[in-house]
């Protein structure tokens, strides 16, 4: 039955169109992968190979890790990764705590000023962050935060309205019955938040964690403006500075650095692809 149905569906026309679709998809995928693959290949090449051969030639020795050791020894790789991890973990903690608390109060309580607060958030969300950097920079200067990784932390967690929005929308979709009955049984508001609301918000929290981690690991503009020195900055600045210092005959070393920065993302991406994709779809449509 199933077989017959299949056979009926696979008309020659259909086969032709499927072939066309596959061809286009394959072509696009090659275009996506090729630049990455060439960078990867280059990271194993000797200076001579870089100079003489075509970019698409394979390295003679895949075990040549000279570029990797050169990059690791010549650049502050350890400190950049440490800073990146520190910024991500602290910011995620602040965003999660502050965001879920604010969402709890804004969604579950009616109080004077609530509409005004919501309005302020809507206005701020419409203002593109990149336009206010000119004046935000002065604020950060007067707070003494420029050139400190805390600048990144306060901006990634303090100016992040989208996450708060995700929390509010998510909480709005959860029935109030559970927290109302807990209230009747004598739980305090804080207990309700801590024991009921926070655990219920796990899906929204994981969406925010995924979206924000990707953003913080990859962002360039904030590290560039507020932490120009790698000692206080993330992997973005590590690569930016390294590429400034390198010349065409050290290109392969830079490619090794790029592989070092990209590798953790790719590993996480393929390990968690289901969560990332669904988190992205949820977050993006709402944001």
């Amino acid at each position, binding site marked *: 039955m199933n077989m017959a149905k299949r056979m009926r569906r696979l008309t020659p026309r259909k086969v032709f169109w499927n072939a066309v*679709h596959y061809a*286009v*998809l394959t072509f*696009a*995928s090659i*275009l*996506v992968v*090729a*630049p990455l693959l*060439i*960078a990867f290949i280059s990271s194993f090449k000797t200076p001579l190979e870089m100079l003489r051969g*075509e*970019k*698409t030639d394979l390295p003679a020795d895949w075990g040549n890790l000279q570029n990797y050791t050169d990059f690791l020894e010549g650049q502050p790789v350890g400190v950049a990764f440490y800073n990146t991890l520190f910024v991500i973990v602290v910011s995620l903690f602040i965003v999660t705590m502050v*965001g879920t*608390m*604010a969402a709890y*109060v804004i969604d579950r*309580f009616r109080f004077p000023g609530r509409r005004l*607060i919501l309005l*302020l958030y809507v206005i701020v969300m*419409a*203002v*593109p962050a*990149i*336009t*206010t950097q*000119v004046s935000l920079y*002065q*604020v950060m200067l007067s707070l003494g935060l420029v050139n400190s990784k805390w600048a990144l932390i*306060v*901006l990634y967690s*303090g*100016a992040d*309205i989208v996450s708060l929005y995700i929390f509010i929308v998510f909480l709005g979709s959860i029935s109030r019955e559970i927290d109302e009955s807990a209230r009747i049984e004598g739980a*305090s*508001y804080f207990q309700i938040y801590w024991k009921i609301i926070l655990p219920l918000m796990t899906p929204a929290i994981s969406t925010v964690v995924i979206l924000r981690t990707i953003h913080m*690991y*990859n*962002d*360039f*503009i904030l590290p560039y*403006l507020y932490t120009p020195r790698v000692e206080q900055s993330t*992997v*973005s*600045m590590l*690569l930016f500075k390294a590429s400034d210092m390198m010349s065409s005959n050290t*290109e392969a070393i*830079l*490619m090794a650095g*790029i592989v070092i*920065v*990209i590798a953790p*993302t790719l590993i996480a*991406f*393929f390990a968690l692809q289901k969560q990332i*994709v669904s988190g992205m*779809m949820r977050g*993006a*449509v709402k944001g």
Partner: protein
Amino acid sequence: MFTATAQTQRRLVIIGFLVVPLMLLTVFSLYPFAQLVWFSLTDWDGISPEKTFVGLANYERIFFEDQELLRPLINSLYYFIGSLMQLALATYFAVILNRGLPGSNVYRMLLFMPFVLNSVAVSIIFRDFLQIEGGLDALMVMIGLGAFTREWVQDPEIVKWSLVFASVWRYLGFQLLITYGALQAVPQDQYEAARIEGASEWQQFRFITFPTIAPILGLQIILSTVGSLEVFDVPFLITGGANGTKTFIMATLQEAFEFRRVGLAAAMAVILLCFVMLVMVIQRAVFDRGGTK
């Protein structure tokens, strides 16, 4: 043991849970926003203690006197055209991947992958890829298109499209994913019914798929418009703005941090902000009229 009355407890929670977020909102969003508008009315250089009020002089200069200042805005047009092509492509990919052909998941992953990669890393990769005798040229030689290689970054006629290509490369997968998400809402039995009725693939798209995803596509066009006004990373990291590839954001930040004309830069930022707000207002008007909420 201290037990607060319900009323006090309620008040404590509301204030306690909101004080930090509201403080952050004020210090890092509202106050800088107010400052930006104020700076744009002064001739401040970013250092000197006094800021002289100059009224709308900065705006006059941008609109009427110094034509060079607005010129980078034209570059947004390239990214806008690019983003429309990108949306068309992303929709096509989303539709065919949604059919569940074997291998769909692999293609979806590959096309989405660039979006999760570090901005600086992919820009440097592209800078090398587009160089003379770089990766792209090598690939073209490999498949027999060696005669068509160009100076992708050095030729001022071509470089803008090269950057648009880099940008499409980076963001296509993201749009693909959003459209794909919207497609999940189309009931599969409608396709089944249409197939039994003998509807062609195009008819299925035109009458079943498109009406469902139209609101999301509209939203994505708005986001693309806003996005093309705010382009920074890709051109800054690949060409540094050389060869006429400077975008308006790059020009604004350059005025502020390099030339130390904070007043002028603030006025440019306010102008950009007004454009973005205008787009958003148009979106609201169109969407509310369309009855999609």
